């Protein structure tokens, strides 16, 4: 049996700045994970991924990232996504410095 689909968000890096972006429910790119749309239906997620990947002038490396639904929006299931949301741990740079 195929594995059950787990909640995901669409994420990428912005073409110009290179920073981490997420897709909202109204198809805007946001810098904030808590504003991202949590996708729970696989077919819907695949269509959103296709559409987002076509936005070649805005985003690079679009993919689906696993998330757990949380009180304040999606929470990363993997530490890599946690770092992408926050920034590096050796300096107060990246997302943590701007939010």
């Amino acid at each position, binding site marked *: 049996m195929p594995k059950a689909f787990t909640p995901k968000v669409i994420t990428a*890096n912005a*073409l*110009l*700045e*290179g*920073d*981490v972006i997420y897709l909202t429910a109204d198809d805007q790119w946001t810098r904030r994970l808590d504003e991202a749309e949590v996708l729970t239906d696989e077919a819907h997620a695949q269509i959103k991924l296709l559409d987002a990947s076509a936005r*070649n*002038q805005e985003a*690079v*490396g679009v993919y689906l990232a696993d998330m757990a639904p949380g009180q304040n929006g999606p929470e990363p*299931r*993997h*530490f*890599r996504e946690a*770092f*992408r949301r926050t*920034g*590096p*741990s*050796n*300096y107060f*740079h*990246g*997302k943590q410095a701007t939010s």
Partner: protein
Amino acid sequence: MYTYSDFDAAFVAERNAQFRAQVARRITGALTEDEFKPLRLMNGLYLQLHAYMLRVAIPYGTLNAAQMRQLAYLADRWDKGYGHFTTRQNIQYNWPKLNDVPDMLDALAEVQMHAIQTSGNTIRNVTADHFAGAAADEIADPRPVAELIRQWSTDHPEFQFLPRKFKIAVTGSPNDRAVTKAHDIGIRMIERDGEPGYEIIVGGGLGRTPMIGKVVRDFLPRADLLPYLEAVVSVWNILGRRDNKYKSRIKITLHENGLEKIQELVEARFAQLRPEFTGVDQDMLQAIEAQFAPPAFRTAPADDFNAAYTSDPIFRSWADTNLRDHRAEGYAIVQISLKAHGQTPGDATAEQMRVMADLAERFGHNELRISHEQNVVLPHVHKSDLPVIHTHLRAHGLATSNIGLISDIIACPGMDYCALATARSIPIAQEISTRFDALKLEHDIGPLQIKISGCINACGHHHVGHIGILGLDRAGVENYQVTLGGDATETATVGERAGPGFSADEIVPAIERIVTAYLEQRREPAETFLQTYRRVGLAPFKAALYPEKVDQAHAA
């Protein structure tokens, strides 16, 4: 030092103009990311976890003061006020924006620098002994040869789409400080019966399948170098596996085909190529060599040095730890540690870069080097100038006395920056150096190299660390594997894996247990960690690392 010819300057300017247009076409959408990616990689531009990253070549790790100042300018103007020096003697900027990169490259060209072939499946920046031209044990300065190879390999039409990246290192000294045995090609400058030549080592490399290079030619006459290198790369270019990127490096080609077959193929190709090199390359080498003439060393009393050495214990500790023997009487090689305890290995602020540039200009014959150990070197300093240099370094957080010691850690950027990483490296390095600084043990421990990689690609050279640490992702948690007994020198050895890995919380105590075991096992303080390890083997360290297993064995 080498100065660009008109040809070099025009070539770099043209490449920069091409790249500027490529960036513009990417931004307008005329180029897709798939089309643009190989172009940006050829010019040193990566897309990492949080931002773009620009990797700038520092050919054979040699810089002058103006170049170092320009690196500082780039850091201030287009990045976050710092740069990261890498294990291949390059510098990386972690936060550039795509449309700023063409301006950054133009600014680099103003001081005869570029980012060409610092990425992609090409021959990468040629590295060399960071003490080149200064070391007391040197047979010949490797930099002219490295520069010749750079000119030959840059935009070489046959080698722009290789099976994978290709790295070359050169040393002119029998004591190998350039890790030549862990490169695709390692070149050792040697002499036989008074005739200078090269020993050519092929097929070394770390990464997923660590291998120590093998000697394919034990003596190559000087004039044969370029045709021979061309033969090696050419044979691999055809034979190298393009079906599987994990098997594409020349070390696998050599392993799968055997040394003898590779030697046969290389010699056959060499025989074809040799007549095409009619001596122009040797004329060029001669012209390059003239540009690397040693500076005019001065003769002066070393009284100031002796006085400071006797009266100032902090200066003495720094001098004992960070200086190395220079070939010229009264001179020393100064190693500036970019490993202040608790800081990120290899990082320098723009201000620190300017301080080092000023010191090089005032006291160091206008020369700086970047070591693969991620430190900066002032290769030519008269001893009488050392006290004042030390004072300046101290004022800017650059006088840590730890070269070659346990806190002089090589660490790749790891998952704090790198898109390929499976775990973080930098915080582990920070914690280890902070811990051993607090213990005040590192000078007692003596020479001990820790090298940390945040993934199996091994940019942090963990396989050849006396203690190697490899960060992995084990079921969604950072996990750190330990290897012991690695060696990056002329007696290069791949370390042995000690056993199961440790969590991020457990790894620093684990390292401490290894060091305690060493202090218990060593015969005398002069016996280094590596010597002790070679004498007693893995067992006592394994027992120290996994005490619960020993307890279980006794209980059973």
